[in-house]
């Protein structure tokens, strides 16, 4: 009933506006179309300049309200992201200048050169000099932006430093899995056909590869402040994207084509809680590539901590190999041997 009422009111408003518009058309016909046009010309010319002024104030107000909610005030949480931030500031400055100049000229000209009695437009059809000026200036500005942009781009996409740790992250509908290479620093081989949910081998790790035997399989990603990390990125089903907005980075996770990305975390999670003034702060991994109905809930967590805390955490994790094959776990040998002994004794008794 309420909805019907609202629809009726909206329809009424439409009809009223429509009738007023019709009436004003009749009035303008009575007044003489030329006069009506001149009057509406004045009104619209005035509104254009009002729009410019109110618009510029709006731009300022919008910035006051929302700048503090962006990632700029807290700064980049990765060393590499600082370059992206500085690049952003440079681009905002360059495009901002052009924005204000051109918008002001557009609305100012529209207002100033509106039709007036007895005035005639100035015949001015071309000027090679002017064309050259506004071809060259944007070209120079863009060259600067391209040069800085590519410099950062090649740094960021280049090889990671040699002290980088390697962490693998795999996306699937709708979550993230993390794998650490363990003590040997080498991730064991994988083959998607080895995927086996019942046994728990959900990443399709090839456990015949010795390198896999000390790999850790976790859901949370822990990183060390100040130590570069290289992410090896995989997807199991559709394309996902490892979005790390605080670190200013993102990279697609593509099934069948592993990708990589590296960065150096600058602040621990605890430090970021202070920097952002948000006691609930966490580094979140957001999926930034449409991946299905649960796309918006595909969240991962990164904990950045000091080396000591990191080592403690790593030590508390058990290699996946031993979770899946408890029989091979050396820490469980005592239990295992007793079982085996028991079996032996049974067979002996027979």
């Amino acid at each position, binding site marked *: 009933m309420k909805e019907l009422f609202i629809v009726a009111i909206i329809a009424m408003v*439409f009809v009223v*506006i429509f009738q007023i518009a019709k009436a004003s058309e009749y009035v303008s016909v009575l007044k003489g179309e030329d006069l009506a046009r001149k009057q509406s010309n004045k009104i619209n010319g005035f509104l254009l300049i009002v729009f410019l002024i109110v618009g510029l104030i709006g731009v300022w107000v919008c910035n006051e309200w929302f700048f503090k909610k962006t990632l700029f005030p807290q700064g980049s949480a990765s060393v590499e992201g600082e370059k992206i931030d500085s690049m952003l500031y440079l681009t905002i400055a360059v495009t901002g200048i052009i924005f204000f100049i051109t918008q002001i000229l557009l609305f100012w000209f529209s207002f100033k050169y509106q*039709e007036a009695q007895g005035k005639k437009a100035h015949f001015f059809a071309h000027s090679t000099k002017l064309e050259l000026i506004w071809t060259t200036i944007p070209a120079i500005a*863009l060259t600067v932006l391209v040069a800085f*942009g590519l410099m950062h781009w090649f740094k960021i996409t280049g090889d990671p430093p040699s002290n980088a740790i390697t962490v693998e992250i795999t996306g699937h509908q709708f979550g993230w899995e993390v794998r650490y290479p363990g003590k040997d620093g080498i991730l064991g081989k994988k083959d998607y056909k080895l995927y086996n949910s019942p046994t728990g081998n959900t990443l399709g790790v090839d456990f015949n590869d010795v390198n896999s035997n000390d790999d850790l399989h976790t859901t949370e990603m822990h990183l060390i402040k100040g130590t570069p990390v290289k992410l090896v990125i995989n997807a199991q089903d559709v394309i996902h994207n490892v979005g790390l907005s*605080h670190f200013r980075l993102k990279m697609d996770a593509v099934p*069948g*084509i592993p990708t990589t990305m590296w960065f150096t975390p600058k602040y621990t999670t605890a430090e970021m809680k202070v920097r952002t003034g948000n006691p609930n702060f966490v580094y979140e991994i957001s999926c930034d590539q449409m991946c299905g109905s649960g796309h918006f809930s595909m969240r991962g967590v990164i904990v950045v901590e000091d080396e000591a805390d990191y080592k403690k955490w790593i030590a508390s994790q058990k290699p996946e190999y031993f979770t899946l094959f408890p029989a091979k776990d050396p820490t469980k040998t005592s239990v295992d041997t007793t079982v085996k002994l028991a079996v032996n004794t049974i067979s002996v008794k027979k």
Partner: protein
Amino acid sequence: MSSAILHDAAVHGVEHHDAHHGEHHHTETFISKYVFSLDHKTISKQFLVTGIIWAIVGGLFSVIFRLQLGYPESTFPWLEDLLGHWAKGGKLQPEFYYALVTMHGTILVFFVLTAGLSGTFSNFLIPLQIGARDMASPLLNCMSYWFFFLASIIMAASLFVQTGPASGGWTIYPPLSALGDASSGSKIGMDLWLVSMAMFIVSSLLGGLNYITTVLNMRTKGMSMTRMPLTIWAFFFTAVLGVLSFPVLLSGAILLLFDRNLGTSFFLSDIVIAGKILPNEGGSAILFQHLFWFLGHPEVYIILLPAMGMSSEILSINSRKPIFGYMAMVGSMFAITVLAFLVWAHHMFVTGLNPFLGAVFVLLTLLIAIPSAIKVFNWLTTLWRANIRFTPAMMFAIGFVSLFISGGLTGIFLGNSSLDIHLHDTYFVIAHFHIVMGVASFFGMFAGVYHWFPKMFGRYLNNTLAYIHFWVTIVGAYCIFWPMHYEGFAGMPRRYYDYSNWESFKMFGGLNEFISFVSLIVFAAQLLFVMNFFYSIWKGRKVTTLNPWNANTLEWTTPIRPGHGNWPGEIPEVHRWAYDYAREGKNGEDFIPQDVPVGEEEEKH
């Protein structure tokens, strides 16, 4: 040969122009006149009306999903009445949210801003402005519309299938779009989407080939290429873009259909879905993105160029001044057309593509900013020392320039790969392309409708409604999309159904509510336009003069309601370019139409 056709058509035109002015007693039936019409003017109206209907649908979809984004905690019982189980308990379901997002994009990009924009105005203006009786092939032209109609029917049908329409985003990246197990929208809905798009591409190619042929071969005497109005140049380049790039999307769509239904592995490899290990190996999901964006990026210019052309024309007419730098305008459109083919991978900077390749695409992408800047400065100079009449069309043309500047500048952020790493797939991208490609092109389209409506229907649109429409739309569009840049700077990802569980993105609740509220108002203003449009076709104020805007181009030399064949007598001969405004015309007018011979004392253009 072309002169023979012209002669033939001339005779044809004369024959059909009988004593009853405006009411041609063709030996035509209702079906041949209004349904399977061969007249380019009728076909253009068919495109326009179909485009308007699709725009209402596509716009309504965005209003519905904006309700979810603006009011994630609320329920709307009427939504359940409208959408059934897709909005159980008045709450939009995520699957359908994504279906709406996908359909909103597909409908507006292809059905409204490609078919509705270039289909309408290329068809309407090319023969009228170059001085031709009709298109090179009226039959292909008619088929072009009916293939579009077929595509529309199939796409509309996909909205009603049980598993829902396609829901993987308008870019339909596989494997998501290839596997029914990955998303319910990737079941039959996706097949229908692909078939519909295939029909759409056929329509677009038939239209495009026709436009190119007509522009190249059927110009009237004296209409050299460099005397053509900028509208025609824009439609010509648009058609070239479409003809060269749409087939690539067709190949992608067909390969995707194969992957979906025939067990091929063009785009699939190493996939475990719903606990099943798929046998597909060796395909590349990224290959599809190359095929898609090889069309997808030129598509942006297919949408934008007609708006640029029409705005140039309208700005010049209503400034009562020649367009500044005609050759530079043509040159920059040509540069945009060429570069449009060389920048597609800037949509793929974060797919893991080779960084060196990325760098090449950065360079080529940012090069496009130069012709774009030239166009903006030329438009500004056209306004300088003008004598401006703020007709509704002029308001939208000025709005177009403003939006093109705002949206174009943010392209410089996204085209620079190092910034794109951060901004990719955030609300910054949404703000960018909605302003520059969505709203700006819509403004170009509205400018065109307001300007050429008198020629189309022999009546005017209501001016008061037009000004309300303009002001609500431009203020609303900026209120909606300007703040989204800040959400993008906060890294807020696009295509999220709900942000409330994210510590990083949940602080924009109030802003999202504001945006949704404004989008409702802007949508209502568009409905006002639609009312004005349909009302004025039959009841609008009648046009009483041949040339209501005092324009130079040839369409205003035809009768107020031209019949099939456009000119009752000879096609006028062209003696000058289209921009002789601010000149001393006969009877002291400030313009000299293209068909007026060059006087003794005049210098030639």
